[in-house]
């Protein structure tokens, strides 16, 4: 049975889809059969970030409604054999994701995969609750900024109460904190909450710190998950995060401001 990972956040636009794409690709690259599902019905961004938007024929809702079977809807990644994408529907109403329907699809998928990564919409609306309901693990994506941190804490409350695991009294969902768009320079200047600050406030297991990086926009422009850009800081940080998820003990990188040379310190700022 596959392990189900939900990528979630209270506040929107913090980097969930970027993370879902990176984590799914990272797991698949390490040889795990992985499916990544877009739960953001109506918006549908994951296929763009994965670079498979032109190969979408059927979607998640088609499968739930029995208009297509899973194998027709799943798109195999061209770069990695063990990665498949299940795109979201663009037009249907959000209620199309029924708990029963989602449960069935996840169960069927679960037989053939090691990991199922669920890219959730932000907040607590219907699609988000569906994405988290069946989860075994949650990655709570957070920016070092007041409203994002507060909303992440709210998500923790919901993960702990409104999930299958909570309802059946099983071991609770394993929650991980992923801090994204981190800028060590701004932290050093005292303008931005630090990793330690956020951890102190949320007291969660920290699975990674992804620095603010132009490579993320470049990657999304090209439809390539940033984890494949192994030269970039964000790509390296996402790779570390995947390894940590799989049990490796790695130190956090890119959390200290780079020491600039004396010239750039005086002239470049």
């Amino acid at each position, binding site marked *: 049975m596959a392990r189900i990972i939900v990528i979630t956040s209270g506040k929107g636009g913090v980097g969930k889809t970027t993370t879902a794409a990176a984590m799914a690709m990272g797991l698949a690259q390490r040889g795990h059969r992985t499916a990544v599902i877009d739960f953001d019905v109506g918006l549908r961004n994951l296929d763009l970030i994965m670079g498979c938007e032109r190969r979408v024929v059927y979607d998640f809702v088609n499968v739930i409604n029995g208009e297509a079977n899973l194998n027709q809807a799943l798109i195999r990644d061209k770069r990695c054999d063990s990665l498949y994408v299940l795109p979201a529907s663009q037009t249907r109403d959000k209620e199309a994701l029924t708990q029963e329907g989602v449960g069935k699809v996840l169960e069927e998928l679960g037989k053939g995969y090691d990991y199922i990564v669920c890219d959730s919409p932000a907040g607590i609306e219907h699609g988000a609750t569906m994405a988290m309901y069946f989860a075994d693990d949650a990655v709570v994506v957070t920016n070092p*900024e*007041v409203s994002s*941190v*507060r909303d992440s*804490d*709210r998500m923790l*409350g919901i993960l702990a109460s409104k999930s299958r695991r909570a309802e059946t009294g099983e071991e609770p969902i394993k929650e991980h904190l992923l801090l994204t768009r981190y800028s060590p320079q701004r*932290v*050093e*200047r*005292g*303008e*931005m*909450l*630090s990793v330690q*600050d956020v951890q*102190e*406030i*949320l007291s969660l297991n920290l699975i990674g710190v992804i620095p603010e990086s132009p490579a993320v926009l470049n990657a999304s422009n090209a439809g390539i998950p940033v984890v494949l850009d192994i030269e970039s800081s964000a790509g390296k940080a996402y790779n570390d995060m995947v390894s940590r998820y799989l049990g490796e003990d790695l130190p956090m990188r890119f959390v200290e401001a780079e020491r600039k040379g004396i010239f750039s*310190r005086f002239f470049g700022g």
Partner: protein
Amino acid sequence: MGLLDVFRASRKKAGSASLAKERLQILVAHDRAFRNRPSYLPKLQQEILAVIRKYVEVDMDAVSVNYEQDETQEILELNIVLPDSGGRG
């Protein structure tokens, strides 16, 4: 510590991040207490209000219920505001 580091350290204190942290700590503690309070509280509040109103003419918001929890104890605090005078039947 070099001269530049001294500048840096003094700048750090002036930054707004420490303020953000302080505010968040208070807010998150409050949110968590609110989440953890027993689900019967609103009903309890309603029923107490109904009982009080049998005997005293009080406003609909005269009863407030506060719940607090720390490691060792749970505190249920009831506050009932009675009218100034002449309200008693």
